[in-house]
């Protein structure tokens, strides 16, 4: 009986403690919310977009009945629906997006596209998940949303969290970056490219030539 009594007492204390903690938490949360407005809100439109379009890409790549060439073609189309390619192309150039000449841009754009498609197709292929499930989203500011998902099934043993940064509004959204194991792909790509150009003394052509080579190398390796 004493045991039960003390247990009950403990539970009561814990509950009171929990209430206090909750109050403190919400107090803090309220305080925090006052400064960055709109943080933590969800965006159903962005979530629906990722659910549909990203799922489509994953379904295509997980399809065992499709040849690699077919996959490549469908992936190429799906990328346009899913991602804001011009914006990403600009972002990965970092500070050099300001100094690139129109001629260089005209050459960089298709080279980067081919390179990125090859690279990301093999990245996604490494994991070969099947189902994508949206678990939530965070509105960073209006029109800039992080949609959190998990990918499971296929070769994945435990659900893999993947986040998608989408820009847009209402029903029109486009993915600009993808995060996985904490790593944002476009941000990493930007650092990679900017450093390569830096080390070439600011010569963007060096990067373009290198991507041309490694882009074809990557597709050959697959």
């Amino acid at each position, binding site marked *: 009986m004493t045991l039960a009594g003390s247990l009950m007492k403990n539970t009561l204390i814990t509950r009171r403690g929990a209430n206090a903690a909750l109050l403190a938490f919400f107090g803090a949360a309220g305080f925090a919310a006052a400064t*960055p407005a709109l*943080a933590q809100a969800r965006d159903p439109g962005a979530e629906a977009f990722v659910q549909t379009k990203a799922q489509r890409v994953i379904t295509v790549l997980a399809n065992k009945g499709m040849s690699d060439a077919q996959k490549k073609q469908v992936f190429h189309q799906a990328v346009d629906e899913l991602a804001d390619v011009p914006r990403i192309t*600009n972002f990965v150039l970092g500070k050099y997006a300001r100094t690139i000449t129109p001629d260089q841009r005209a050459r960089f754009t298709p080279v980067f596209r081919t390179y990125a498609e*090859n690279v990301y197709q093999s990245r996604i292929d490494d994991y070969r998940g099947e189902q994508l499930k949206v678990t939530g989203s965070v509105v*960073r500011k209006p029109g800039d949303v992080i949609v959190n998902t998990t990918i499971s099934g296929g070769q994945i043993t435990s659900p893999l969290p993947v986040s998608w940064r989408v820009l*847009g509004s209402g029903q029109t959204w486009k993915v600009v970056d993808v995060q996985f194991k904490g*790593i*944002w792909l476009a941000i990493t790509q930007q650092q990679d490219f900017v*450093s390569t150009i830096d080390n070439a003394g600011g010569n963007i052509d060096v990067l373009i030539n290198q991507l041309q080579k490694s882009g074809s190398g990557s597709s050959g390796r697959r």
Partner: protein
Amino acid sequence: MRDHDQSPRLKTQGRHFAAAGAIAAAGLLALAPAARAENQIPTAPAPAAGGETTAAAVYDPIEGFNRGAFKVGMGLDKVIFGPIAHGYMAITPKVVRNGVGNAVDNLGEPNTIMNHVLQGKPKRAIRSTTRFIVNSTVGVLGLFDVAAKMRLPARNADFGQTFGVWGAGPGAYLYVPGMGPLNVRDGVGRALDFVTDPVSLYVGGLSTDFGKARTGVTIVDLRAATDPAFRALDDAADPYVTTRSAYSQYRDAIVRDATGKAEDLPDFDAPPPSPAPAAPKP
């Protein structure tokens, strides 16, 4: 994470190392606020537009040395670790590798529990304790992650993360051949993970056959598990910077997982190529 036990020397110098580690940690913590402040761009009114991201600004004062070390490390990987891992992956089915990975992770669980406690996270500590008990018994010495199926998924913790929770910034980036990418905070953390690891202390460290086998298996398992990352590096224009960026973001995310803080991201459209609106409003 589950990569401890690298240098045999560490074991004998364990106590000295722990003391040195504690001093270094204290120093790190003292410097942390300054390092943070340095990175922060004061953009007061803009919501969530902090400008500071680990991704954008990795502090790498000895980049020249690190690049050399990276070359050596990748060379070592090409002739030793890579081939061993690929051989291992070729002769074992995925089920076996998953089992081995689970067992390695399970032996890291006591260290995780300790760090959850140090981070003031009793709930996570209890979950990890339950995981350790269930997986060590029902899960046959950790080969099967039974606990994950009981809705107790793994939640790793380490000293580097704990220092991050206590407010330490990552400090300078380091590349150590054979250990891979690190920073000061996580390097000190890893040394502490090593010398305070409960399994090494109570079951057997590197001087025992168990410890040697565990270290060997841990290294092979880790290399096999990170194989996709190594393949991704083949596509990078500058593999050194790609590694540095990816590692820093990865560790930053691990600290954020414990602090619950939101990530600061760069605005996607800065810097604009031409006068484009900063806020995307199509």
